[in-house]
């Protein structure tokens, strides 16, 4: 009984913004869902790796970890420049970008603030991957 009294005395009042808490929880849930989906996609044949990042977290899984910086810079540049192009023609926010090179291709998208880039071989089924990752 004495112990219970002591713990009640040590409590301090904390103000919680319900909206902010709810938004953070939702953001974390979306991020977790997306990383789970990406982990499954990563196992598909032809998928070389992925990068996901939001304001607070990031996850990277690449076949060639030594190229991490190269892929990360490219991914960021692709999303920024694609948005610039979209803005030029007043097309609004980008939903996804597919870039195809002679050897590989990349699919980038922005889902609820989570910027995702999936790298794959040229013959991989990007439409199927887009379908899987889309909410």
């Amino acid at each position, binding site marked *: 009984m004495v112990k219970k009294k002591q713990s009640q005395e040590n409590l301090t009042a904390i103000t919680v913004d319900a909206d902010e808490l709810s938004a953070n929880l939702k953001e974390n849930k979306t991020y977790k869902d997306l990383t789970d989906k990406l982990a499954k996609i990563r196992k598909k044949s032809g998928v070389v790796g992925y990068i996901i990042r939001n304001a607070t977290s990031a996850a990277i899984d690449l076949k060639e970890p030594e190229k991490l910086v190269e892929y990360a810079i490219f991914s960021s540049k692709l999303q920024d420049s694609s948005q610039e*192009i979209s803005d030029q023609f007043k097309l609004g926010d980008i939903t996804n970008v597919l870039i195809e090179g002679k050897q590989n291709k990349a699919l980038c998208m922005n889902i609820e603030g989570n910027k995702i880039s999936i790298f794959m071989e040229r013959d991989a089924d990007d439409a199927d991957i887009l379908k899987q990752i889309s909410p």
Partner: protein
Amino acid sequence: MSNEVYAFTLESTLDEIQNACPDVTSNFVFKDGKIIAKNKKTTEENATQTINAFDAITERANALGDVDNITIQSTKGKVNIAAMNDFYVTTVSSKEADEKYVNTLTRILIPIVIKLSKKIQLASLENETIRIDQPKSEDNKDEAAEGAVEEMGESDEAKDQSDQTYYEEEKEETAPVESETYEEPEQAEPEAKYDNDPLLPEPPVTQLIVENLSGLLVPSDTVRIDKEVITQWAELYGDRKIKEVEVEALNGKITRCKFKQIKKSKDAGKGIVKMPEKIQLTLETQQGELVTVKPVIE
């Protein structure tokens, strides 16, 4: 070939594409960072900014290899930048645009126009060279050159070009000119051969969509084509044996391979060519892309 020649034909083509498909809001062609042609609705600034952004992407795209295609899907529309015969074609379309229709128009028309422009230019240059060479052997160069220009009856630009070609040739004096002139009888020989052979119609070119062909027993050097197409060829060439076809991708890559009739009835009449992965890699094409197929007449 100078970019100016392409510019005229491409600009007309881009305008026609937009007329045919009003959902294409803007389109332009660029090469080596320079605008080659744009339609009327595309501003210089938009095109330049897009090219700069594209260059910024390709500079960092070493991990992917040379960039062939970028498709940016936005909330209100789509931008596609595709490599075609050393050019990049940018097409901006609204959300309502029929993607397949726009792709078909752009990816077929533009490469054809580029190829045709190239061929026409080469052919006219050859004609000019022949006409200019002939009078030279008659030791009356000045009169002949004037005559050649009058005969052509072409635009001022073409006349200027022919004059220029003539004077360049003149500077080189006799040796190279003579060698070209003497080649003419050699060229006449094949014509004589054709007289003995029955005249054959030009092989028809059929556009088909690539579909994957896989399986354990599938030969990697054989494509499968619709029965109707093969029958048309057979009717056209009668007893002539057609053992191979020439397949050309939109990027200009060509390969020869054997062919067979499509087996599955559900795939018949769909306008597809079933292609093993090895041939797709050779052509640098893939499922869903267009290729042209024509028979190789033995």
